């Protein structure tokens, strides 16, 4: 799936994560900000990367502001952001869920 425009999903409220995805030349770069970065930073990054890979995204710039989201929330927000950024919201990626 190709990232066509910048898009965002999620909020900055407690237990949520805000994920912004924009175009990149190649590779997935994640800029993560989280209070639990030390404890769960790698886990959060891995959930985002895995979700993007499952959706076939190979190049993207991701900016994530985490407020203590659980993995299922991170995954949901990542899927929503990718679908918006690739302009495919009319074809939900059910198989990823």
């Amino acid at each position, binding site marked *: 799936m190709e990232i066509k425009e*910048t898009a965002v999903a999620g*909020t*900055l*409220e*407690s237990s949520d994560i*805000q994920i*912004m995805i*924009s175009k990149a030349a190649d590779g997935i770069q994640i800029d993560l*900000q989280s209070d639990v970065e030390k404890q769960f930073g790698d886990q959060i990054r891995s959930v985002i990367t895995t979700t993007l890979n499952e959706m076939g995204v190979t190049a993207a710039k991701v900016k994530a502001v985490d*407020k203590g989201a659980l993995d299922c929330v991170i995954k949901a927000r990542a899927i929503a952001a990718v679908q918006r950024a690739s302009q495919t919201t009319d074809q939900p990626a059910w198989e990823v869920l």
Partner: protein
Amino acid sequence: MDNQIVDLYLKDAATKHDWQAFLESLGINNFAEREVDQIDFTIGIYQAGELVATGSVAGNVLKYIGVCNKGVTSGARFNTIVSELVNRMFAKGVYHLFVFTKLKYSESFQHIGFSELTHSDEAAFLETGSPDVHDFLADVPTVSDQAHKKVAGIVMNANPFTLGHRYLVEQAATENDLVYVFVVNTDLSLFSTAEREQLVRAGTSDLSNVIVVNGGDYMVSYATFPAYFLPSKDQAITYQTTLDARIFRDVIAPALHVTTRYLGTEPTSRTTSQYNQVLNQELPPRVAVKVVDRQVAALSDQPVITATEVRQFIKNGSLQDLKAYVPDTTAQFIQNHLVTLQTRIQKGMNIDGN
């Protein structure tokens, strides 16, 4: 409606009164009409009939954010308000936002994904979203081995590009290996941003070591330095120019290895001369400031070349007088587009400012 986000319509006198009283109780006191008029929308949270949190957006800048934390987890309402403002802007396709705030609140914004561009003793300036300042800098053309070259920078509105601007660029070009000319991005001048940029490019195309770049949101933009475009008090000008100067010193100059900033003397514009004064205080020693005297014009009775004068000539249609003030490229453009430019002036475009 308790604890729900609602839209506040400041056109309604009672709403505005409550809103202003609430912010005043938190120490925000600037409610000048031209500030409040800039607001695009305002949201708030009420509890038991009392306003307990609010925030607004003007252009791509978050403004008038105030939150009362009584009885709730500290920061929860702040996050709710900023989240809603940011999401509404994202929904509109505006992915790059700024905030000016008191220095003590900078951390609160950094906590929710903003990054600080610079701060002064009392204020901080932050951005969030994309493209950010790193994307902006990555797009600026560079030359090989730039770190060991002598690089200078000039920021100009060039409304339009005159022989005075040309003289300034020429001076810098002879004294340096590379010169960046940053053209002010904000589109609030008689000549549009694209036209100004095009005329600077055309007027400097023979100088091989000059690179013309759009200054983006980071140099004398409507976000960082609104006083350049709106008549403002001295205090506001100093406050804004300090942040503008520090962004140049701390972010722009190091990334592009700019060691000298060139300025033209400003005998006629109060705002610009104050700006120059602040640049002189803030930039050295990290970035040297070089002031170039305005070139004496060909006409004996006109001591300085100013773009303000040029705009007067356009208004009056005196194309002959104009030729002594601008390079051929600019003169040609004005001749070809005289009617369009005059129509803009008739439609109320202010030509006496910057």
